[in-house]
């Protein structure tokens, strides 16, 4: 035991002496706190953040979560980030308040705060005493609206597959869709499938069995849309159009194969790129921007891929 202690103390002192000369991982310009990177959306965001920062010569650390609901873990990461004194923190909170205390401290330390993915409520953040410069993300209402516009001029019965009732994003998408739907369309059912492929498939099967003249399925994300596609194929129905949201890899594949009709793509890579660029510009000129900084969205269908001329297509992964 004694010997162990001595050798340990020796090691410790060596470490201290050496640590003076070694390059530390501490100097960093931007720290980004994002969600769970096992989700392709956040993995693409992470790539976008890191690649863009590298291209621009900005030092960035990206902290991601192992579990999208880990609000305390993210708070711990945020507290750790504060100690590194970055110039800016780009964050996407697990829920609208979990980072509250940390963001307040960041504001006191004059660290620039930028929201990414647009889930925070501007007023609530202000109430909690933190100053967020702006928020970069897609407009979920616009996304739903885009899907509705894609169906312009069509007629028939519509099934809406919603996200979980707890998700504001899902609600805005559905709202955007419903409020901008063409006159010829009637919604016969609107049910939540909680972002779940199988639930979406079950809902689709039962609705289409009762309503064989169903013509359109709108799902609040691609996972559910693909579930609907599978259910329809299993019933040998080819006449129903299915529209999803996100433009995931699977969805793109399905569109190219002619199964999924269309997907309104969010472009996380572009979102990440914009976030870095705008943050960098803000750090340089401190020019205030409108709070909501929307990232363009792109409706994907077979025709778009065939033309292959939209510049935004480079951000579709």
């Amino acid at each position, binding site marked *: 035991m004694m010997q162990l202690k001595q050798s340990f103390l020796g090691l410790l002192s060596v470490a201290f002496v050496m640590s003076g000369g070694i390059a530390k991982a501490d100097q960093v310009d931007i720290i980004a706190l994002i969600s769970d990177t096992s989700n392709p959306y956040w993995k693409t965001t992470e790539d976008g953040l890191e690649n863009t920062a590298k291209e621009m010569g900005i030092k960035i650390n990206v*902290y991601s979560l192992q579990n999208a*609901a880990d609000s305390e873990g993210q708070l711990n990461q945020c507290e750790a980030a504060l100690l590194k004194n970055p110039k800016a923190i780009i964050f996407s909170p697990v829920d609208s308040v979990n980072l509250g205390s940390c963001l307040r401290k960041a504001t006191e330390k004059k660290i620039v705060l930028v929201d990414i993915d647009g889930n925070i409520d501007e007023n609530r953040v202000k109430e909690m005493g933190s100053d967020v410069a702006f928020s970069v993300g897609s407009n979920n209402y616009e996304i739903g609206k885009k899907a509705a516009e894609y169906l312009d001029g069509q007629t028939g019965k519509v099934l809406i597959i919603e996200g*979980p009732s707890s998700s504001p994003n899902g609600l805005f998408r559905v709202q955007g869709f419903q409020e901008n739907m063409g006159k010829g369309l009637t919604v016969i059912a609107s049910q939540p499938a909680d972002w779940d492929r199988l639930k979406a498939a079950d809902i689709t099967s039962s609705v289409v069995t009762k309503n064989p003249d169903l013509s359109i399925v709108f799902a609040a994300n691609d996972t559910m849309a693909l579930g609907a596609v599978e259910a329809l194929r299993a019933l040998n129905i080819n006449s129903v159009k299915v529209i999803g949201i996100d433009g995931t890899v699977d969805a793109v594949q399905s569109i190219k194969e002619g199964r999924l009709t269309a997907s309104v793509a969010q472009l996380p890579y572009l979102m990440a790129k914009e976030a870095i660029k705008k943050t960098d510009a803000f750090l340089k000129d401190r020019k205030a921007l409108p709070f909501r900084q929307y990232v363009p969205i792109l409706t994907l269908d077979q025709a778009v891929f065939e033309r292959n001329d939209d510049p935004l297509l480079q951000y579709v992964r």
Partner: protein
Amino acid sequence: MRTYLGLMFVGLLLLCAVCSFLSDVFLTWPNFLNILTASATIGLLAIGASFIIGSGGLDLSVGSLMALSSVVAIQFSTHSPFPFLQTLCLCLVVAAVAGGVNGFLIGRKIPAFIATLGMLSLARGLALIFSNGRPVYGLPDSILFLGQGRVIGIPVPVFIFLGIILFCHVLLRHTKFGRYSLMIGDNVNAARNAGIRIQRHLIWLYAFSGMLAAVAGLLFMGRVNAADPNAGMMYELTAITATIIGGTSLSGGKASVIGAVLGALIMSVLQNGLTLVNVPSYYQQVAVGIVLIVAVAFGQWRGGHAATN
């Protein structure tokens, strides 16, 4: 046990040395406080787990009980004239009742794994029902103070953590409650034949585990500003990991509060250090797995060694 804890402590210091070698921020007072605060929730659950595992049992429901107790407590105390007291009491009572149900079932020969696995799902479901699946915002300031407040510059969760460590250490080593828990884990027949009322004890034991989860839930909600029905997901496994790293054997009869706390600190230092050094989260999971296996293999080897003496 004692030598193992000594070596664990050396291991922890070594880990700190490596981290401070890679990051100047690591070995600072504010970061030290960060680590202590971050380890409080898992630490409390790990202390509970050391009692439970020491008794030869298992409690998989603690993560869900964190969520259930905090959600129910907040939902039913928003308009109370004494929001703090009511939240505190409700939190403890809800978790104690749910834990008591665990203990009751286990006393009636339902395997602990199954009883608490059922409670894991049941309590999580109830938490989602009571909160409509959404975090409940707008906590009383007094609860926020529990999670975010500071007294003489030290975060309140740290005080609560230290207080409960002391309380539980005394409970385990110096009261019949602690001793009987270990006796039951060591030889349940002997304990029963010696006149210990096993069924009654198990109810209290699991209720106690639930109450520690409730305190963890209070700290959690104070820290993140919300009573979150998704709080504490997978925390039960992290807590068990910390307890095992801390030297508690899965076969029962032995436990250490200090060990559980050391285990939680090791996990917390790993997470904090790897974050500061900017190691991606995938590698953090790998590191936790390696530490667990190395610690247990080491304990195994040392245990075998002691047995041949």
